[in-house]
């Protein structure tokens, strides 16, 4: 037992060293450092979504943010266009409050998602540290006895703040956006 605890604390020390090393690298080479930080951010966003930590999810966005899922890839703006999602923080708040309401009947059955994010490519990085990053995702959803699979591209405009990155825009181009929806999308993808 004691050995195990010892091992754990040793592992922690190693992890701390690693993260310190990471910080050093970030300072030494900006590009590589933000690649790592951006990836970590995207992975954490996916994890928060799968954990249904709705408020934490919304908090990842800036106050003037937009979560946008166009129905087709040719769209260049949500403004005045049909959209599957075009939600500012207020609308995201409505969605969160709905799913948390005890009488949201469709939330009763067991359901969960699993997001995997990859192919993370930093498209642009500004001098102030803001980045535009492209990535790909796969999402598997289980609801009652049904399994659905969604996949597509993310485009994040990330703002660098003292608390880490915050999302100014998240564009989601789902490969199956045009396919018929067997039931609806209850929350963000």
């Amino acid at each position: 037992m004691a050995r195990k605890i010892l091992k754990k604390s040793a592992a922690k020390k190693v992890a701390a060293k690693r993260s310190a090393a990471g910080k050093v690298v970030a300072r030494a080479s900006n590009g590589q450092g933000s690649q790592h930080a951006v990836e970590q951010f995207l992975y954490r966003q996916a994890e928060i979504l799968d954990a249904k930590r709705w408020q934490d999810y919304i908090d990842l966005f800036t106050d003037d943010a937009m979560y946008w899922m166009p129905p087709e890839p040719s769209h260049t703006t949500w403004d005045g266009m049909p959209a599957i999602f075009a939600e500012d923080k207020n609308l995201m708040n409505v969605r969160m409050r709905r799913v948390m309401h005890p009488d949201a009947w469709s939330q009763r059955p067991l359901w969960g998602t699993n997001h995997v994010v990859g192919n993370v490519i930093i498209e642009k990085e500004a001098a102030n540290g803001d980045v535009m990053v492209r990535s790909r995702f796969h999402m598997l959803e289980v609801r009652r006895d049904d399994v659905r699979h969604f996949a597509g591209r993310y485009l994040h405009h990330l703002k660098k703040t003292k608390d880490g990155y915050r999302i100014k825009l998240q564009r989601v181009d789902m490969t199956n956006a045009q396919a018929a929806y067997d039931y609806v999308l209850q929350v963000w993808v």
Partner: protein
Amino acid sequence: MLHERIPDLAKYVEPDRVRKEVYTDPAIFELEMERIHERVWVYCGHVSQVPKTGDYLTVQIGRQPMVMVRAKDGKVNVLYNRCPHRGAMVCGDHRGNSGEFFRCSYHAWTFEHDGRLRNIPMMESGYTGTRWGRDNPDCGMKRAARVENYRGFVFASLAADGPTLSEFLGRSKVAFDDICDRSPEGEVEAVPNCFRVIQKGNWKIFLENQLDALHPSVTHQSTGRAAREVELAIEKKTGKAPLAYHMLSAFATVTIDKWDAFQTLNYPYGHCILTGYMGLRPQDPDTLEYERVLAKAYGEKRKEEILSTNIHHVLIYPGLSVQSPLQQLRAVRPLGPDRTLTEIWHFRLKGAPEPIYRRALAYYNLVNSPSTMINADDLENFWRCQQGLTSQGGDWVSFHRHHGRDIDRGDYLETGANMGTSEAPMRNQMKAWAQFMTAEK
């Protein structure tokens, strides 16, 4: 055979209740397709969706894959989407342009946009002396028996006989009048986007829900309340919340007694109207500007008539749910007894100021898109109904609410005062259903 299995269909429907098999029995579903959907006028699409020669849109009428196409002469035709050679579907996409003529992908048979055969490869060497050839009308793509449009909304009937489109629609035509008249040019344009959502329930469950004025405050209370909370917070901060929040919060703030103050009007062939207007005529600068544009086009009196059209929802049986004040519709395509596809479109009022379109768009995105916070709970209920109806726990579906209190106006039934939540629309739909299903031809 079906007719033997279901010897007395009329017994499945009583004025105030319906047998559960009507929603679950595959044999009844097949018979519905034959006697209702493949016989009556079914909505195909809007003329603006096929503006150029060769533009097409594929659409399902009952069990029949069809294609709506713009021909060289400007006419919009509806054909069976099937090559007469080996039966291959000619148009494989939801929409597209076929060019000057249709060409089958399998053996290159070609057809005019009215279905007539244009050419068969090796027509002379291969077909001379056979029964198949240019002079045989069966060598073309078969046409829908009848195609008509009302104010640009195209319907087809696969039966040669029956009421005209105008007779069939009757007073439900107001759906299209209300949509079009709200444009200063009297015309609308379909926005080229279709949301397609599948419901795991019988097609009739969806139609019955559309005019069920009791369900919103129960089914949609979670979304209504959530939207109301945020709406109030925004109002506190900035004084005014966007109209979109009202569209959602109304599901909570319009209480059952207010829904009761609305009315349903129930017409022949199963069509019904729910009156009530979700406060979409505010006195903000955008609305006032729009009213000026309308008054200029129609005059003050006519403008008032148009804007006071008191409609929340029009249901055109057996497959179209229209929300005319917000220029959108949902077309119902039954896929099986327990699966139903809805195709959801919205329209732009030609000549109306942009902010008015934005209202229709907000409702389309928030309520009718695949991320809908409203229909999410409807679809859950439809699934639960479909599951429950397969059980042996009971034989009937009840439509008793305010039964016996409807007012007979001769050619239609009206719900009495403060009975807006009456189940009259369901009774009316099932009455039409029984008439269609038991009609000999």
